[in-house]
């Protein structure tokens, strides 16, 4: 097990968004987190790379262990931690006025890698793993924002992969994409999990069913059910899970 949270709590000011969530993530698996809007699923993964604390007024309780070490420990630098836990966002967000190449290389360049050879090979590797290389290899100097929405999102995946994280967090990565682009990214995920452990938030239950090994259902900041995806979608143990996945609320 590579990553786990213990009794994780999160607040926005006085509002408690997470009420003690404990989850465990196995290496090289895809874990989906589902739940209705406002259930705290995005907040949850934003606690896993310490992005939650960047929001003014936000704080957390409980522990998150990456490879056994508490990421909220006093000796942990959140900046260095985030190189180990990458993130892809809901909207494709290539950096403005930056070329395709620079978008992927920027994390490495600003992280201190200067050798052109090394940058080139890492950019190519990342773009290949993100299944984008063949589409962009002839336009690496074009602005990242000139690509299509689906390509932009794969560019963002490549950008996150370039710094070689061990865990990749994805916050509804296909919700802004058309079905074809969505299918490509879903395909990609099953390949990607050979390289990284994936935690994906999705509001699309079919997507969760298709791509994940395990699924967690969050409701109003609480973990309702966590288990094998195939079991959760055929025989959920909790009545609330049943109601949610059969579309009776949410």
């Amino acid at each position, binding site marked *: 097990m590579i990553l786990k949270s213990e009794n994780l709590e999160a607040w926005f000011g006085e509002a408690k968004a997470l009420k003690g969530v404990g989850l465990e993530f196995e290496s090289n698996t895809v874990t989906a987190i589902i739940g209705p809007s406002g259930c705290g699923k995005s907040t949850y993964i934003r606690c896993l790379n310490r992005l939650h604390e960047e929001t003014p007024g936000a704080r957390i309780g409980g522990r998150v262990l990456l490879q056994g070490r508490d990421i909220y420990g006093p000796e942990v630098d959140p900046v260095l931690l985030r190189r180990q836990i990458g993130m892809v966002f809901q909207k494709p967000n290539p950096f403005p006025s930056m070329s395709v190449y620079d978008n992927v290389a920027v994390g490495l360049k600003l992280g201190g890698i200067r050798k052109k050879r090394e940058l080139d090979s890492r950019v190519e590797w990342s773009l290949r793993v993100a299944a984008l290389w063949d589409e962009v290899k002839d336009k690496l100097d074009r602005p990242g924002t000139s690509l299509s929405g689906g390509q932009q999102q794969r560019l963002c995946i490549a950008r996150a992969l370039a710094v070689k994280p061990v865990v990749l967090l994805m916050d509804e990565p296909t919700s802004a994409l058309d079905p074809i682009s969505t299918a490509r990214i879903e395909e990609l995920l099953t390949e990607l999990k050979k390289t990284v452990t994936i935690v994906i938030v999705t509001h699309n239950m079919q997507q969760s069913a298709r791509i994940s090994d395990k699924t967690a259902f969050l409701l109003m900041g609480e973990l309702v059910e966590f288990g094998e995806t195939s079991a959760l979608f055929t025989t959920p143990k909790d009545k609330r899970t049943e109601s949610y996945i059969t579309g*009776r609320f949410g």
Partner: protein
Amino acid sequence: MERHFDEELRKLKTELLAMAGHVERSIEHAANALVGRAAEAISNIYELEQEVNREHKSVDEACLRLLALQQPLAADLRLIVAVIKINTDLERMGDQAVNIAHHTERYMADRDQPEVLVDLPEMFSETRFMVREAIDAFVKNDETLARDVLKRDDRVDAFKHKIYSDILNILQSEPKDIEQGFSLILIARNLERIADHATNIAEDVIFAITGSDVRHSPRTGPS
């Protein structure tokens, strides 16, 4: 919250129930033909067979459509999968009723034979009870009824074994009745198969309700 999908599921259940009704009638006619010596009942069985075959296809189509368009999950998914399997079981029951009709015709071809039906009337009523109970369990979403069906399966099996040995005993003294005896053995076997299908239906009902798969467990497993 009532969903549009719930209406669709209700329609599907109604369609399956109509088919179940036809299968029950078909078995009833088979009983009347053999036990009640009502040869005219046999033609009804053949007519119902056509009806059941049509319904078999139609229910499958409806399930396929719902799976494709609604992408059901959890209880909805289990219900539709159960309906698909129950549909197949019902159709096979209908086929067994037709088989009974064939064997009954052969059995009755020789009118001179004495009426030796051994325990077949009792086996008929026990089997019909199981079929009725399995369908009731489905209609009422009743797990207890479904479990009762599973218990009864052993009794039908016992009837079959008893009928086999009784008829073998009779044939040892009256070897010339072999053709009639053989027909009766086959009918007992058909009934036993119908009971097995009823058991399958009960198991599917339990799966649809609870999600637990009780098939092939030692206590209840059909042979």
